[in-house]
């Protein structure tokens, strides 16, 4: 058949092609022959055991890098996190932080963690390829009031046109642990407030589901909240909500008689910090109001608490 004869005579192109073929061929073959697949399955048991033995209430376990989460099979009940950027975690409530790292991830995190106030207390290599670091958090804070855990104390309303409809049906959720939610009298499949797991900024987070209503606002009031200096935490759109919803959410936080502080969360806000300075004494009513101009698929979740600096 008609094989064409327009062969290049250019040695420049030919030389470049040879370099590319040899370079990419050798590199590619070498890559697959020598790349590190990481520790085998049996290496995780001993590493997890180190953490489980030393684990105390309030400790945070970070699995790094974020995509290597096999250790959940051993530590999942302790709720480890595996965020894309562990330095962006809310470390305040955790007096100690454990890192179970593969592929050098634990070592890479050290400078950043030191900068945010963590002090490396111990580093172990319990199995080949797995590093376990334990940090003390020098800037840890004591959680005085956890709004997610204290939902049963809250009163929930749908405020619309100056009227308040109470969402006062308390339903227990299926699954392990005692969890309940306040359900509104209509659209109950999504119109409720309850602690749930949601995918916030590419990480499963335990937070308060609070879907904004189509009209008006969803109001969650917590009476007698102790004030100790800081009300803080995170809030955002679930991933699916962020890519399908059409409007930002207005999240109003009101402490006592003060004017509400509005946090407007555009759809790209997947898990942003939310914080307010509060008085350091007394108790008051704290309320959260959630509203939007378009409620369709506007899946919103927050996890806030009242904190004070931990005593040394």
């Amino acid at each position: 058949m008609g094989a064409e004869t327009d062969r290049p005579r250019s040695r420049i192109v030919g030389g470049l092609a040879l370099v590319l073929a040899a370079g990419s061929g050798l590199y590619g073959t070498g890559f697959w022959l020598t790349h590190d697949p990481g520790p085998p399955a049996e290496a995780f048991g001993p590493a997890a055991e180190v953490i489980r033995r030393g684990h105390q209430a309030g400790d945070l376990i970070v699995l790094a890098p974020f995509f290597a989460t096999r250790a959940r099979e051993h530590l999942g009940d302790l709720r480890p996190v595996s965020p894309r950027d562990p330095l962006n975690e809310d470390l305040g409530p955790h007096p100690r932080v454990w890192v179970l790292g593969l592929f050098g991830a634990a070592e890479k995190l050290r400078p950043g963690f030191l900068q945010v106030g963590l002090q490396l207390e111990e580093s172990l290599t319990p199995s080949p390829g797995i590093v376990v670091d334990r940090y003390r958090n020098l800037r840890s804070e004591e959680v005085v009031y956890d709004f997610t855990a204290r939902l049963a104390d809250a009163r929930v309303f749908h405020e619309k046109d100056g009227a308040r409809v109470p969402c006062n049906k308390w339903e227990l959720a299926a699954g392990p642990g005692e969890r309940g939610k306040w359900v509104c009298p209509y659209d109950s499949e999504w119109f409720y407030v309850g602690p749930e797991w949601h995918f916030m900024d590419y990480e499963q987070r335990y937070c308060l589901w609070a879907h904004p209503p189509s009209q008006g606002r969803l109001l969650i009031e917590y009476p007698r909240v102790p004030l100790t200096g800081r009300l803080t935490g995170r809030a955002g759109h679930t991933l699916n909500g962020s890519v399908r919803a059409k409007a930002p959410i207005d999240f109003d936080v009101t402490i006592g008689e003060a004017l509400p502080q509005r946090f407007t969360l555009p759809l790209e806000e997947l898990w942003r910090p939310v914080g307010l300075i509060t008085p350091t004494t007394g108790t008051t009513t704290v309320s959260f109001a959630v509203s939007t101009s378009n409620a369709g698929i506007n899946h919103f979740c927050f996890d806030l608490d009242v904190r004070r600096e931990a005593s040394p």
Partner: protein
Amino acid sequence: MKLKTGHLVLLLAAAYFVILWVTAPTVGYTRDEGYYFKAAEEYAGWWGVLFSSRFFEAFSDAEIRRFFSYNTEHPPLVKLTQGITFHVLSEWLGLAKPAQGFRATGFLFGGLSMIATYLLGRDLVGKGVGVLAALLVATMPRYFYDAHLACFDVPITAMWTFSLWAFHRALIAPPERANRAAIVAGLVFGLGLATKLNVLFLPAVFVFLWWVAPPTPIRFALATGPSGGRDLRLPQVPRVLVACALIGPLVLIAVWPWLWHDTFLRIGQYIGFHLHHEHYPILYLGRLWVEPPFPWSFPVVMTWYTAPSPLVWLGALGFLVGLLRLLFRRSLSDALLLAATFIPIFLIAMPNTPIFGGVKHWYNALPTLSILAARTAFEAVQAFRSTDTQRRPAYALISALMLGPGIMGSIHSHPNGIGYYNELAGGFRGGAELGMQRGFWGGLAYPLYPDFGTRLPPQQTRVFFNRTNYDAYRMYRREGVFPAPISYANEPKQSQVSVIFEQPEHAEKASETWGLFGTRPISGVYQDNVTLVQLYREGASSQPP
């Protein structure tokens, strides 16, 4: 020598079939396969009517509806062939489990795609280039994965390439062979139409090739007609274009009994389905995309990160060289290679084209990209070695270098090749770091299922299979993959066991599972310690191990 190279390619294609046959049983059944298993088996039932005393009834709309009304959004050639391979290999000869019987069609087309690439490469450049290009296609890890499946993407790559080869052959045929070559091209194009939608875009390539290298000059002219008036004189359209336009659709209709009644309505429905195809979510460079406009860079970047790097680098260089030759020399072979590589990628790059299968939807660009890469490598050798004796070992060496990463990547990624990322990305880990989709279609969970016997209680258990769809589940059941009594649950809340895939677009199922069962997976599927799938069980997942 000609015979020897041809035999070598046949041998390589047969070896590819055997390798796919041997390695397929560890590859889980994907979402689409579930549909095609079902369709192929239903379609095959029609043969039973055709070869019976009810022969004439087989042509009635009622009988055709009975057997062909499922999955009418795809033409039937592959499904009909799957039905045949299933019946022959699984039912009659007992050589294979049912899914393997259906999948054998994919293996066959995998081998055919090598032959087609060789033929095209041989005709456009030379035999050596054809052989290397065929091997480059076969050893691309994602392609190798897809060649295991009872799906259409590898078959359409074969038929697209055969169509290009037959068209080119007919376009340059001497007059005495032009008619025959044109008819063959029309038939092959028709079989391509009967394979998958992609071939509908080939006429654009064909017309472009005619424009680049017309057998007779393309001239529009005004001439005096028989009546003395001025007539517009059109250029002579090549016979092969006419053949493709006439024979192609007829073959499609002939092969697809569904079109034998209400032909135009049903063709319209078929095309209409694809014009309004839903958009599937895709994780791309750390962002979840669910609706248009999708980034134009998607197919380019994905090719960059999922084709072995020698194919990427030399293919890109070959494309540039080809472009210069097309511009300055109006070379037909370059026109064909460039157009057939560019169009499939361009179509997916358009912001409103649904992205719903990762890289497989432009696999038909691979054979010509591979030919470009192989040609670039061989011409490089020719630039530095003047005699055949000097060139042969250099050809062998450069071929080995170019094939190494693909072969190693295919071996390493099997059976999880759907989540393969190349050495430029940093492998599976690199893909995850980059924020790319780690997998989809539900096949990756397969290694968990035979373990159900040791992980689940002996009594009936309801399992939320998540991305493993019901038809794939049925096939697992049919083949006795589940050692424990299992039933299929549509939602985590209806189940006692939940399979969670690392797909952020379905992360709410993981959220629901964590709430219902707890946060500790009891097992999982990992590649290079990158999490692909994890399994949760009521009770156990809320407790320490």
